[in-house]
């Protein structure tokens, strides 16, 4: 490895160093506040290290990782979300018996795993990153171990996520058996000239097809696409609210980041081979199911966390449109752009919603996730209510919010790629979703509610307010984000 390799890896290395510092600090001096401060400093340092890293980008470091602007975009988002989660978790865990400091170690580790996924270009790196995130998250979900729901959620997550990983691993093994390759780009090159990776399986090689399908099922487990979603609502509901937020944002975005890179590099959805339709079909089916069933099930929920879980299922369903456009468009830049804009918006609004839920809950008093507990929030906690309203309207796709720009992009990409069926599924899904988002907004406006006042922390409210502003700013003036994302997409696709 050369110095330039190290420079490219700077964000990962900085975060690893920060992680070690936090571990050492905890072993000598237990203080939740110090752990938080060090964690935030580590995140800040890793964030700053993105720029030296970008100077060396795009750079392949070992066959496993590639550090380009695409990876840096995701790394930046993951670091910011990690920092927000640390702040939210600090207040959430206060007042709980036992020691809270290890939570921050796990959080840093999970973020490191997510960053690895964003830069993975090899099955080994993919698996590595995925397992680092998942194992940290098992412990984070179960962190308030004295109460029942987190433990149940963690166990459920452990088993089902393990099944997902095993399925994916088996798929990888079969793909390796058929092609002899593990790197994404090598997979595309492993098939005979004139053929594509996606189409080769369709044509003759049963092992390859089986491997691809199992791999996609594993990914669908991790993205909680219907029908592989069963764990999601239970785990989101049982997990501590800051962790649910992290699960819904970082862990999904990281898996999608690697899936998109895989689809681009390995030409998973390249329709030029002619026969790759079935692979795209597989994605289209789970996408439509997720959009429609996810929204229908969300209608039935009384718990905001469950509702947001189903809504996140539906949103990942929408996101699949961007992935499918990859195979339908001659220029793939639009697909990557759409995915990145959508994810930026999705992460901001989902995190904003969970930040409010988390601010109202705590490990000591328990989760406040029933919709009736939000009655009158507008009059008791106007700032938090305004943030939650912005987040929900954004999730519903109302203009001047990030969610609208995200859906607008999907519309544009879908129309350009002529994916009419998926667009209609998205319209139907969005129409259904308005009802349940508004149900919460209405509950917050109800007047004579005598729900108990909840102590909130100033820094938590400020964090939520900042997230709410991000949702609005991305919706009102998205041009800078669009420019940034356009450059990233162009850079990613021009790489050899």
């Amino acid at each position, binding site marked *: 490895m050369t110095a330039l390799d190290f420079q490219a890896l700077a964000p990962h290395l900085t975060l690893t160093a920060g992680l070690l510092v936090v571990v050492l600090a905890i072993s000598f001096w237990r203080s939740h506040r110090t752990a938080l401060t060090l964690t935030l400093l580590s995140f800040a340092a890793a964030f700053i290290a993105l720029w030296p890293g970008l100077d060396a980008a795009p750079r392949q470091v070992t066959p496993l990782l590639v550090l380009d602007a695409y990876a840096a975009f995701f790394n930046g988002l993951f670091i910011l979300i990690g920092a927000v989660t640390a702040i939210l978790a600090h207040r959430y865990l206060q007042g709980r018996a036992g020691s809270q400091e290890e939570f921050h170690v796990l959080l840093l580790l999970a973020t490191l795993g997510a960053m690895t996924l964003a830069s993975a270009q090899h099955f080994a790196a993919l698996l590595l990153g995925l397992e680092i995130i998942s194992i940290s998250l098992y412990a984070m979900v179960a962190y308030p171990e004295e109460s029942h729901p987190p433990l149940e959620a963690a166990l459920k997550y452990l088993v089902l996520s393990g099944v997902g990983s095993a399925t994916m691993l088996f798929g990888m093994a079969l793909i390796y058996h058929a092609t002899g390759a593990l790197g994404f780009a090598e997979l595309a090159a492993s098939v005979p000239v004139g053929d594509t990776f996606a189409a080769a399986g369709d044509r003759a090689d049963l092992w390859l097809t089986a491997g691809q399908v199992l791999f996609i099922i594993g990914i669908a487990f991790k993205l909680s696409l219907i029908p592989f979603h069963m764990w999601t609502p239970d785990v989101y509901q049982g997990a501590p609210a800051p962790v649910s937020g992290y699960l819904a944002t970082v862990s999904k975005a990281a898996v999608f980041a690697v899936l998109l890179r895989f689809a681009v590099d390995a030409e998973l959805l390249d329709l030029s081979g002619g026969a790759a339709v079935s692979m795209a079909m597989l994605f289209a089916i789970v996408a439509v199911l997720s959009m429609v069933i996810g929204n229908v099930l969300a209608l039935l929920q009384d718990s905001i966390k469950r509702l947001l879980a189903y809504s996140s299922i539906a949103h990942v369903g929408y996101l699949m449109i961007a992935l499918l456009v990859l195979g339908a468009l001659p220029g793939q830049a639009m697909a990557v752009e759409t995915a990145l804009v959508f994810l930026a918006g999705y992460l901001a609004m989902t995190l904003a919603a969970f930040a409010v839920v988390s601010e109202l809950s705590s490990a000591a008093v328990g989760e406040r996730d029933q919709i009736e507990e939000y009655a009158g929030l507008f009059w008791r906690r106007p700032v938090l209510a305004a943030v939650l309203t912005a987040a929900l309207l954004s999730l*519903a796709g*109302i*203009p001047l919010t990030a969610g609208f720009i995200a859906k*607008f992009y999907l519309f544009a990409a879908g129309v350009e790629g002529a994916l009419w069926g998926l667009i209609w599924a998205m*319209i139907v899904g969005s129409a259904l979703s*308005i009802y349940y988002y*508004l*149900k919460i907004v*209405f509950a917050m*406006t109800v007047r004579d509610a005598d729900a108990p006042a909840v102590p909130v922390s100033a820094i938590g409210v400020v964090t939520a307010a900042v997230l709410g502003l991000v949702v609005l700013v991305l919706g009102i003036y998205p041009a800078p984000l669009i420019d940034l994302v356009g450059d990233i997409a162009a850079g990613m696709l021009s790489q050899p």
Partner: protein
Amino acid sequence: MQLLGLILLLLGGGAVAALSERLHRNAPRWLALGVIAVAGLYLLAIPVGTEEQAAWIPRFGINVILAMDGLSFAMVALTLFLGLIAIVSSWSEIDESPGFFQFNLLWTLAGVVGVFTALDLFLFFVFWEVMLVPMYFLIAIWGHEARAYAAMKFFLFTQISGLLMLFAIMALVYLHYDTSGVITFAYADLLGAELDPAYAFLLMLGFFVAFVVKLPAVPFHTWLPDAHTQAPTAGSVILAGILLKTGAYGLLRFVVPLFPEAALDFRWPAMFLGAASVVYGGYLAFSQSDFKRLVAYSSISHMGFVLLGVFAWNTVAVQGAVVQMVAHGFSTAALFMMAGALQQRLHTREMGQMGGLWHKAPRMGSVALFFVVASLGMPGLGNFVGEFMVLIGAFQVDVPLTIAAAIGIIVAAVYALSLMQRSFQGEPNAAVEAMPDFGFRELSVMILMMVALVWLGIYPETLLNLSAPVVSGLGVAP
């Protein structure tokens, strides 16, 4: 950036009004009143024909294009005027969170002003939705007993039809991009888009449904009686006076000019829906026992004339539709204020518990009589001019439908007079004790609206001259 300034003034004023509640309970009201007054003066300073443009999202050729021609000016002026009326009419009605109330009121108005001036389809859609959310809050927070249901229904109807419109906009832009190679949302560029007739028809339907839901016309009208009845007085005034006009404006500005052939193919069904709304809306209005609900149904009937006139698409009919839009804005706003005033005094909207109110409140009675008569189409008042011109124009296009709509005017006389009879005339209801008459505040705004309606009825040229160049510019048949 004068027009953008006007919109930002309303938005900013709303934000300040919301915060000013901490200083004094009355501060938001006075602030909102001041903001509207300043906005009105500012509007007069903006010359008709102003057009301004600024880059917004260059990636998709989206610009902030705002323009004000005669039609837009008339609609914006109506918006600000009725905004003023709404604030005055809610002066003593809204006690809870007056700051947030005025915030929502001003933001709705800002959205409406944007809808009337935007000439970029993306921007138009944004404003279309921006006026929706604060209106939702107005109904959901300050509405009457069944507000949850009404607010949700209102939001779902408009939002879902809005999604159809968004889809149609995207498809239109993409089809235009396909033939011209330019990606743009600008109205002026899309006017000349060459479309496959089959596509054009579907896209036209997407726009049509969104606007007709807002208008509303049968069979998309069911949200309106609930929303109007449950909204606070100011909300009803804005809903009936202005928000319904955005649907009419959209038909006039977008549906027919963007898809002229498709709209021509769709002329009969659209005019049929218009005539059906006139008759069926009137029929439903007659069967109501709730004062506010009756007025709400009468709106459906009156807006049916607008649909009829726009799709007749000749100068007389379209000009008539414009007059009808403005006149209906005044007359219905006044009747909703009357309903609000009655409810505040009697704590009921049921006409069964009214009767003989004229003796207790003669000023209210005479004002009510004036607007009831205006609403039934009395010559000399604005509504008559609008309906008459629409019928003349429509007669040249389709005689049977025109006859059906003309029968609607008779129905209007029946429900309007029965409204008067059941509430203000007849046997005095023993349960009603003394009732305060209109004071200076209420009487003065009512007189303002009376003057406007008489002016429209006697000298409609003021409005017609404003809209004539626009109407001919849109390509209306002579």
